[in-house]
């Protein structure tokens, strides 16, 4: 195999407990998004669109669906002769076994994998962010500035800043201070959780961190502050595009509904930086004689004989005669039976809304109604 300049390590083990019912059964990166996608598609597509063809995916929380969805990576062209996807779950050794305890620990425990690939640089990514980014540009920047670590940052408002890891930089964008979730932020440059490390530097830092008993083995809390303290060369790389961390049900709803706008933040129709997915073979969607669809996204396999307005219908959703779906997100295989009404709701995969049932409320300030996977709502 040819030597790799840069490989990606994709952190996909998080539960995402703030997504409540949506992550009861599956890991957050596997949550369905925008009809036919799953959240991890964005990071994986960014990788292949940036010519990064070796991706280690670190899984831990309820990985079954994620594993089967990713498969051998062919959905993203990550199954080439010179590249691959590797699913990296926690494992057992002769000294015993343990879970991944923190983001840095997850990478530390897979040093063998990275050593095998023997890259110059390692790109650390999260599997639960929505954005289109050319990592190559960031890598070029990392090389040109001879950085040990480059952190991708985005400008946020001062109010938002206390939710993020915040960076203070000098005029050359050299990072001078890094604070996780500061109460009084002195900068608005937020870390996007996207790092490019020079592998030799990261390798040494991970080994040192692994023996520190007080460490939480976290990139933001431990690795980056340690490197700063050692006077390593840390640079900020400012990203100007759209980036969203889907943390809560509200932000999930908002980011999904944004796709319905005439000019959404993420253009899934663009042929450039295309978002790939593991497509299914469902038939084209069918709108019946009583069907009505307006301002919506509709996926393959849907059968619509009711009314659908301002909504997202994922693959194989059925909306029966007389049913109404308004301002809602229906995940794959949802059935809305005859005469049911669904307003401002998110309905989990393979759930069913019984005939004539009413779910959700049109009131703008009402909470988004949420039904988990495989439920029947009466």
């Amino acid at each position, binding site marked *: 195999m040819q030597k790799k300049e840069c490989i990606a390590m994709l952190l996909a083990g998080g539960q995402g407990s703030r997504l409540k019912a949506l992550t009861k059964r599956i890991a957050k990166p596997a949550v369905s998004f925008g009809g036919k996608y799953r959240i991890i598609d964005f990071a994986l597509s960014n990788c292949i669109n940036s010519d990064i063809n070796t991706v280690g995916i670190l899984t831990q929380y309820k990985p079954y669906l994620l594993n089967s969805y990713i498969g051998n990576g062919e959905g993203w062209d990550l199954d080439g002769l010179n590249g691959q996807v590797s699913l990296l779950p926690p494992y057992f050794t002769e000294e015993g076994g343990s879970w991944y305890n923190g983001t840095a620990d997850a990478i530390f425990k897979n040093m063998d994998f990275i050593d095998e690939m023997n890259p110059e640089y390692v790109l650390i990514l999260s599997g639960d962010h929505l954005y289109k980014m050319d990592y190559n540009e960031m890598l070029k920047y990392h090389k040109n500035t001879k950085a040990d670590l480059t952190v991708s940052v985005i400008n946020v408002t001062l109010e938002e800043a206390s939710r993020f890891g915040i960076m203070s930089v000098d005029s050359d964008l050299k990072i001078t201070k890094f604070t996780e979730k500061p109460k009084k932020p002195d900068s608005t440059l937020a870390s996007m959780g996207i790092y490019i490390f020079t592998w030799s530097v990261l390798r040494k830092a991970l080994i040192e961190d692994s023996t520190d008993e007080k460490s939480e083995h976290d990139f933001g809390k431990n690795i980056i502050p340690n490197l700063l303290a050692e006077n390593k060369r840390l640079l900020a790389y400012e990203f100007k595009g759209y980036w969203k961390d889907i943390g809560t049900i509200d932000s999930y709803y908002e980011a999904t509904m944004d796709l319905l706008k005439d000019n959404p933040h993420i253009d*899934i129709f663009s042929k450039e930086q295309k978002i790939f997915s593991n*497509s299914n073979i469902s038939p*084209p969607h069918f*709108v019946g004689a009583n*069907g009505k*669809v307006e*301002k919506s996204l509709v996926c393959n396999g849907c059968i619509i004989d009711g009314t659908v307005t301002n909504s997202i219908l994922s693959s194989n959703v059925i909306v029966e005669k007389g049913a109404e779906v308004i301002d809602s997100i229906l995940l794959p295989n949802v059935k809305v039976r005859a005469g049911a009404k669904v307003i401002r709701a998110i309905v989990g995969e393979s759930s069913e809304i019984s005939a004539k049932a009413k779910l959700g409320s049109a009131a703008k300030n009402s909470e988004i109604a949420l039904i988990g996977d495989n439920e029947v709502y009466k």
Partner: protein
Amino acid sequence: MERLAGLISTNYNNKRFGKLTAHRPIAAIPFGSRYRLIDFPLSNMINSGITNVGIITPHLYRSIMDHLGSGKDFGLSRKNGGLFILPGTTYGYDLGVGKFSIRDCCGNYQFFERIKCDKIVLSTCSKIYNIDYRDVEKYHIDKDANITFVYQKDATGDAGDIVFDFSDKGKLKGIRRLKKKEKKVNLYLDGTIIEKNAMIKILDWYKDNSYMDIMDAIAENLGRFSIATYEFTGFARAISSLEDYISVSLELLDDKVMKELFTGDRLIHTKIHDAPPVKYFDRAKVKNALVGTGSIIKGQIENSIIFRDVVVEEGAKIKNSVIMQRCKIGKKAIIENCICEKAVVIDDGESHKGTDKKPAVLTND
């Protein structure tokens, strides 16, 4: 040993599809919003557990090869068996009624010698139906047959189609080709299970007379084989002309037909494009339609088949039509009873109308 292998002939064409087959074989005609005709016989085979499939290619084979690729999307990219591309002769059937020439089989004789199977399913690409060949195979074995034909009772056949005549006791009396359109016939659905050794016998008998269609050769030798006929009772249609093409396309908009063909356990497979979902805008209106992925719909659609990556601009009205991949229908354009070839651009305000008997075919030529 694998019991069944599949063999599909695509090396035939005729002039009855007008411009639709000017640059492609009948097998590659786009159908049903995301498929091509070849997807139906091919899916029937793979959904019946067949993992060895030979495809006899036509003279103009670009579109077929592009569609099949390595066979990956059909589960046929395999170490053990998989997809076999069998080059057809340069002059395949392009005018007559033949579809499955003995010459094409003889030219690929090694396929029959090497393929690990004792029976072969033969099919062409002019009939639309969803069948489980395992049921046919069971019937074939029960009847201790050498050859089993799949047919439909009381069907409508067109000139050139093969029909079966039965005696009062239900015994097969003869196989003949229709001279003109006929209703209520026992229509051959272009699906056959044949013992491999019977197939090889026929090829050996006819190798010097190889312009013949395999079906005509069998018809001449009915007495020499044990022949069974399997009645298929589901939805099946022949697509033999442009008129058939549009009428069967629009028949897909019948709820029951659509569900039977597309949504059961045996899905129709096709080349995967990975396009985004369909986006409907504010004033979009759609009723009775099948719509492929990646399309952007701002106008009105009624009773129509829309393929992938189509753009329908504001105020456009499409009715009783088939709009193929990557077409752009301009603002306030009116399309009725038309077939829009791939990537056709209809300018703003244009109006095109065919009739339900004679659809207009719009192309870029």
